[in-house]
């Protein structure tokens, strides 16, 4: 049996949900970032899988989008981590529970 598109999608769904779990349930800011990275990886997996299984795979669209997405994820990680450091310096905490400046 060769893996079908469906299997890849299930994997990416699982990956996405784990990322979501991390982002939602952990208090440490870096965990949230890790969760987001996982979700992005899941999305990339989807792009590649859909490209591979599409009727016209000689168009490298999915691949290119994945590359762009990785690049943007890298930028996001850099800025996000910088933010974590900045926040840590300011508030001396990395727990997002304590950051509620936006409370209405």
């Amino acid at each position, binding site marked *: 049996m060769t893996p079908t598109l469906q299997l890849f999608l299930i994997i990416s769904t699982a990956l996405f949900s784990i990322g979501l779990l991390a982002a*939602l349930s952990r208090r440490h800011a870096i965990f949230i970032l890790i969760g987001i990275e996982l979700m992005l990886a899941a999305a990339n997996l989807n792009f590649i899988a859909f490209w591979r299984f599409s009727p016209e795979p000689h168009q490298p669209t999915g691949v290119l989008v994945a590359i762009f997405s990785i690049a943007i994820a890298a930028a996001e990680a850099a800025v996000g981590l910088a933010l974590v450091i900045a926040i840590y310096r300011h508030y001396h905490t990395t727990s997002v529970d304590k*950051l509620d400046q936006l409370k*209405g």
Partner: protein
Amino acid sequence: MSSWIVTNLWLIPAVPLGASFIILSLVNSRRRTAAALAIIGQIVAFVFAITAFLPTLYLPGFRAIHNFTWFTFGDQALRIGWMLDPLAAAMMVMITLVGLCIFVFSVGYMADDKNFSRFFSYLSFFSGAMLGVVIANSLLLLFVSWELVGLASYLLIGFWIERPSAAAAARKAFITTRIGDLGFFLGMLWLYHNSGTLLFYDQGRGCLENAGLLAIGASATFIALLIFCGAVGKSGQFPLHVWLPDAMEGPTPVSALIHAATMVAAGVFLVARVYPLFSLGAVNGVTPSLTVVVSVGVVTALMASLIALAQFDIKRILAYSTVSQLGLMMVSLGVGGVAAGIMHLIAHGFFKALLFLGAGSVIHGLHHEQDIRKMGGLRWIMPVTFLTYAIGMMNLSGVPFFFSGGWTKEEILHSTAHWRVSPLPHYLMLAGVILTALYMTRQIIYVFLGSARNTDFQSVRPAESHSAEAATTTENISVVRTDQRPVFHAHESPRVMTMPLIVLALCSILFAFVLTPAWPWFHAYLNGEPARVDFTLLIQPMLFFSLALVAGGIGLGWLIYRRIPDPLARARPGLFRFLENKMWVDEFYEQTVITFSRILARLADWLDRYFWDGLVRLFAGIGQALGVLSKGFDDHGINAGVDETMSGTRGFGRLIAAAHSGQIQTYLGAIAIGMLLLLVLYAWLG
């Protein structure tokens, strides 16, 4: 010649209309020019009308049409046109002639009005629109002119704009007639839908010709009745008659021209014009729609003449008499006597204009006094007015032989006698004849006979009146103060006002000679038959019977009303009050229809402010609740914007504020839930 006038028939209404607009653009001070322009316009229209009248004389049943395309919509064309036939020609001549007399009269009557030229502009406008009604060969063109006539009537009733009562009367007239016009409008739409054309005659394809009538078929009854609604409104028939007496707030020449001679008769004209619709499928000349016409006419005629018995305003008496005469014409049309009805219309045009102008002359002579209780003894002071007024009164009461009104009334009574459905209208109309004679006698006695009852007016002996007549009217308002009370000199009107009276009186007498049964030329002309001379027809039992009735009525009137104050008021005060207050129809409408629609308006406003807006607010609230659910939907703004009640806003605001915990993870979770919801939606839509 005849083809030229047919294609250029539009000139007849166009000339007065053009004159009207030119006068309107003049400065208010060019009074002479204004009057001259209006009168010249009217004379030109009269000449054209005669030119158009002549060809119809040669051929019995002459009918010429000229149709053209007004505009095209889609790939359809809307065609309108005009026609020349005996009915139109006779109406045109009557309107222009009466109009001319009234224009001339107005020069004297309105002499000291500051809006003199505007008055003539409106009058010319009216004349043009009315002529448009008459020549129309398309129901649409007729409707257009019909509405313009209504506009002119509105403007002229409210001419003395600074009087609140005049403005109210004008508004009442416009709205009441518009109620009828709605029916007319619907009828027109229906007719257009069924027959595919609004042209009356179009070489066999018009809606009044065989093919068109065939297409209309069974709905003809409803169409006819809807169109009749328009006629009811315009002609002041019951139950929409209430505006006509109030319309007497306008200047008297207006009452004479619009609310007596021409416009109010337009309803009768309309019924006559579309008569094939009414009589479609008639059995023995009876159709349901015609029966309705008869019933409305009978009720109106009797009611109005009863009310006229108890009025004290000289113009209002005449107004009710107009209403009742119009009812009589409707009866005549309804029972099948189309020619009789139209003959009466034209005769009525002459003598009612005469009566109104006479009343105007009296009012003018008494410096705008209209209450007949304060008049009396004017026969010496105003001999010309008295004489012509008496002629008018004879016409109206139906004295035959020399008076056209007598003959036409005779014809109508003949027609009613032969109606198959019921003899009742005939007897009721006979009663109407007596009543007419009664109230006219009453009026004559109150106004002209006896002695002056009002101490405000000094009766002037005939010898002195010459000097008054010679002087212009503006100088005539000479007030002599005795006992702190102004005493006016009553006076005969200037010649510019008495001449039209004489002309109209002559017309109404001369017209009688083409109406007699011995030589019923006009009847034949309208019906498109050659006229025969047969003097034996003069001797008829009916004629003598009605003559006896008229004589009886006048005699009775003389007996009753010789003594003033009103004996009826003394004998039956309750009944008299009932009649004096116009049978409380106005009050009834005020209490029911008007109040009801006022409440409706308030309700609509209230619904709008609270219910619909509240519903919107409710929806906004649901939106906000959803926002709370999805915990990310910031719609505080909606609250602030739509919610009028601030407490609600604040409550929702707090809820939403609570949703904004400031916790990133809460927001993130909300986004996830939102995604889940979208997923479910997607799955549901499949």
